[in-house]
């Protein structure tokens, strides 16, 4: 193809940089030179150590062997997120991956559950909605089994993702990328050089004086956005009026207790705390709003609530929630934190990187950089960010908490109209309509809306077309099959030991044989 891009420069390593390098070198022709510039001095942020199921697609594209990858990154399995104290203090629910029950007569499963629940009767027999989701039940019992075709309907509804050490993931991908010819340059970028005629980035100059030229630049320089913002002044859309958290303390602890196959997000007085278990340690952090709690008090809260022993000094991160108005501008595409920030409450950070890469490949430019590609990339990116933003806001808006000014503020805030409509539809009869490119499907919205305490007042009238006895029998059957399926699974620890244990896992002391 004439006019094809021949030189790509990725500025910044870290998760975003190496994910981009690995994917581009895999998909693009061998004639394209890819250079990645990173500095060993600049630490990577690494908050996004929990992922969501589409990561399997990305790893699949790269041809990565799952067990090899988990071993190399101290990775564990993730079946969902446990939300503690979100609806009200001491309440907990799981937002699991995968589906609830089995739909009947084209009616969503949860409608049948709602009917029986609203009728009253034996709540012991009916159980919780979670009892009908294999990922939720397995989470409660710390079980895991990799689903494979032919394992039956319940296992077919099981989905999973991973927790891993993002630094090790970047290193792992670096191996793949370098193996396919990606050139790595160690150094700090001192200057970005623009073409006089149109402001396109022509090259970057390193502190040592070396100049690296290219036609397409990928900005993976983190929050600052060295190219996309500091050079091209693309602009930032601030969302902190909806999501006021602006700081996070992060600390690692040693593992203590069974290895949970889920992320935990615990609501605190002015934010929430994550807990992400890896094979060899646990990542923890407190995401908070500095308007509602001081940095010092937040640090204390974190250190006094972690399960294990802290093995690192707490590190403070500062951020502002919002998105870069154009993630692609001229010949620069921003990935990762350079493209914006949404708190990792639903583990979307790594997914945004992946989705950005996928879109870039689908709209891959030529040297003339038609605005038509840039526009479409930015339109799709905006849609996705807004949809995820709404989903995150839901967690704060739908709450019964009013015990601190922070939670009162969240409960009372005005939210986007699109979200209000979704919440009202669910509150009336438990209905959920998914937007086509929404990352989160009906069952995800169900888990969080219901988990946060939106109790539908009614149910789909069509449910009444099925006999009550049939519904009862079906639900009882599904619940017992789910329970038996999970009982037959090994613990996550046993599964990892068998399939993908890292050296650190085998050495770690807390595991009893």
């Amino acid at each position, binding site marked *: *193809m004439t006019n094809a891009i021949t030189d790509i420069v990725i500025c910044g390593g870290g998760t975003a940089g190496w994910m981009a390098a690995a994917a581009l070198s895999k*998909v*693009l*022709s*061998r004639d394209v030179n890819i250079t990645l510039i990173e500095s060993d001095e600049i630490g990577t942020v690494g908050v996004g150590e929990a992922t969501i199921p589409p990561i399997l697609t990305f790893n699949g594209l790269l041809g990565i062997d799952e067990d090899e990858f988990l071993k190399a990154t101290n990775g564990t399995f993730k079946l969902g997120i446990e939300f503690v104290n979100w609806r009200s203090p001491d309440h907990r629910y799981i937002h699991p991956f995968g589906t609830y029950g089995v739909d009947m007569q*084209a009616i969503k499963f949860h409608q049948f559950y709602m009917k029986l629940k609203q009728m009253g009767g034996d709540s012991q027999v009916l159980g919780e909605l979670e009892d009908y989701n294999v990922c939720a039940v397995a989470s409660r019992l710390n079980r895991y089994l990799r689903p494979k075709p032919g394992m039956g309907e319940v296992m077919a509804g099981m989905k999973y993702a991973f927790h891993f050490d993002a630094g090790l993931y970047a290193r792992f991908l670096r191996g793949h990328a370098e193996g396919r010819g990606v050139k790595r340059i160690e150094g700090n970028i001192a200057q970005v050089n623009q073409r006089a005629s149109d402001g396109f980035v022509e090259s970057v100059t390193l502190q040592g004086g070396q100049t690296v030229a290219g036609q397409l630049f990928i900005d993976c320089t983190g929050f600052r956005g060295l190219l996309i913002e500091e050079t091209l002044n693309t602009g930032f859309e601030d969302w902190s009026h909806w999501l006021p958290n602006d700081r996070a303390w992060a600390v690692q602890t040693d593992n203590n207790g069974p290895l949970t196959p889920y992320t935990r997000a615990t609501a605190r007085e002015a934010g929430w705390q994550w807990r992400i278990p890896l094979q060899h340690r646990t990542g923890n952090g407190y995401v908070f709003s500095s308007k509602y709690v001081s940095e010092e008090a937040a640090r204390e809260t974190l250190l006094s609530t972690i399960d294990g022993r802290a093995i690192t000094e707490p590190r403070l991160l500062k951020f502002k929630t919002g998105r870069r108005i154009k993630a692609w501008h001229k010949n620069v595409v921003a990935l990762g934190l350079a493209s914006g920030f949404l708190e990792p409450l639903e583990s979307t950070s790594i997914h945004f990187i992946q989705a950005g890469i996928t879109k870039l*490949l*689908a*709209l*891959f430019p*030529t040297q003339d950089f*038609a605005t*038509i*590609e840039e526009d*479409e990339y930015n339109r799709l990116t905006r849609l996705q960010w807004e949809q995820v933003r709404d989903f995150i806001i839901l967690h704060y808006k739908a709450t019964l908490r009013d015990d601190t000014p922070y939670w009162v503020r969240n409960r009372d805030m005005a939210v986007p109209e699109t979200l209000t*409509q979704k919440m*009202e*539809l669910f509150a*009336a009869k438990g*209905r959920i*309509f998914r*937007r*086509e*490119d929404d990352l989160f499907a009906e069952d995800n919205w169900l888990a969080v809306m219901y988990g946060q305490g939106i109790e539908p007042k*009614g149910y*789909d*009238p*069509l449910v*009444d*077309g099925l006999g009550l006895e049939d519904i009862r029998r079906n639900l009882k059957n599904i619940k017992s099959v789910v329970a038996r399926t999970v009982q037959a699974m090994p613990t996550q620890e046993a599964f990892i030991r068998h399939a993908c244990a890292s050296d650190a896992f085998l050495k770690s002391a807390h595991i009893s044989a």
Partner: protein
Amino acid sequence: MARLKSILICGSGVAAWFMAAGLSRALEGQGCRITVLDDGATEDSACLGRAVLSLPALRAFHGVLGLSEDQMIKAARVWPYTALNMGTYHIGIGDHGARLNTVAFHHFVTWLRQGGHKADIDTFSIPALMASAGKFTRPVNDPNSVLSGFSYGLVLDVGRYSDLLRTYAVSRGVDVAEGRLTKVDGSGAQIASVHRDQGAPLAADFYIDATGEPARLMSAVEVPFEVDLYLNANRILPALPHDTGVPMMSAGCQMLPVMGGVISDEAATNGDGRAFVQGRRAQFWVSNVVAAGHAAGVLQPFMGHELQLLHTGFTRLIGLFPDDGMSPVLAREYNRLMTQTFDRVRDFVLLPQVLRGQAEGPPELARKISQFKSRGRVVMYDEESYSESFWVSVLMGEGVLPERYDRIIDSMEPERLTQQLIKMRDIMARAVSAMPPLKAVPVTSGVPA
């Protein structure tokens, strides 16, 4: 809040009986009384021509009703079609070629053409080849077979299809009210009752407006009709005589021999046909009334959108089925979904006209065209009724060749790839030539679900 106890459908023809048949099945066992009151219309309430095309998705509706294709073929003067003949190309129902290395097939056609090969995308479409050769067979389930990637729709006689649905609905207990609709009592924003030329006025918990273009119920609650800004044909021409065969749209005057055609005032020579206006209601559900068929919107005949829109509307209504509380949230969501559905269908109907320079298009369609021109990307919005392959057929058929193809192709070995594509085309051609002619379609046979 209680379940709806009664639904009154006003109108006749396909829209009225489609809804009556569907509701009688979906509300089975719920004690909801469904009544149809004829409005005495002379035009059908959903279809402009004498025949209408169905798309494969409608089979799901017939499946839920328990109507077998065999029954329909016998009762409704039906025959299958696999593609719409557009004169110089076909819009086939099904994939083009096969994906190689995850790259959509039309990129290979672009690649071949840029390399100087003559590559007609129709020759890589089994349904298009079948239509142009007058062949037919049913698709097979084996994904490895070249005969698995297509589907087919039905050409339905409008009057007979309506009768078939009516017979079904009545056999399931739908009442037919005596008399003709004379007046609608719409007090403010909701329907209170419907008057007729004999007997007492009828009242119900919920109403369906299937009265066709006059939209008598929607008008009573003052929902405006919005004229489509882009579709400019405004006269309907009668159907030409037809026989079983491939539905065809002639390039010049937007004419479909089996379905009738449309034309714009300027092009009409001697006041042919009758006037009609294309567009849709500003809302499709207000308070206690939902519009179906032409009462919801009117588009010129093309490739099965009439029944597709009825089906989508019905499915959405069931998904949002109200109780007597009539929460406005439900209507709001229904209107959001159906507005998008309608507008995306409108875009598809408009596409050939825009590409021929006969009409302007809305920004969404302009984006679709420019993205395809630039790199063969098919932009798909929320609530699309036509899948990618339909858009690709029209875009390429009307002569849009993308400037670029998917980069992944450059990593493939060109000589081998060319051979592979030629082989693919030969296999398809041979498979089609071995098929029986369309006329020989067995009326009774196993029809895939």
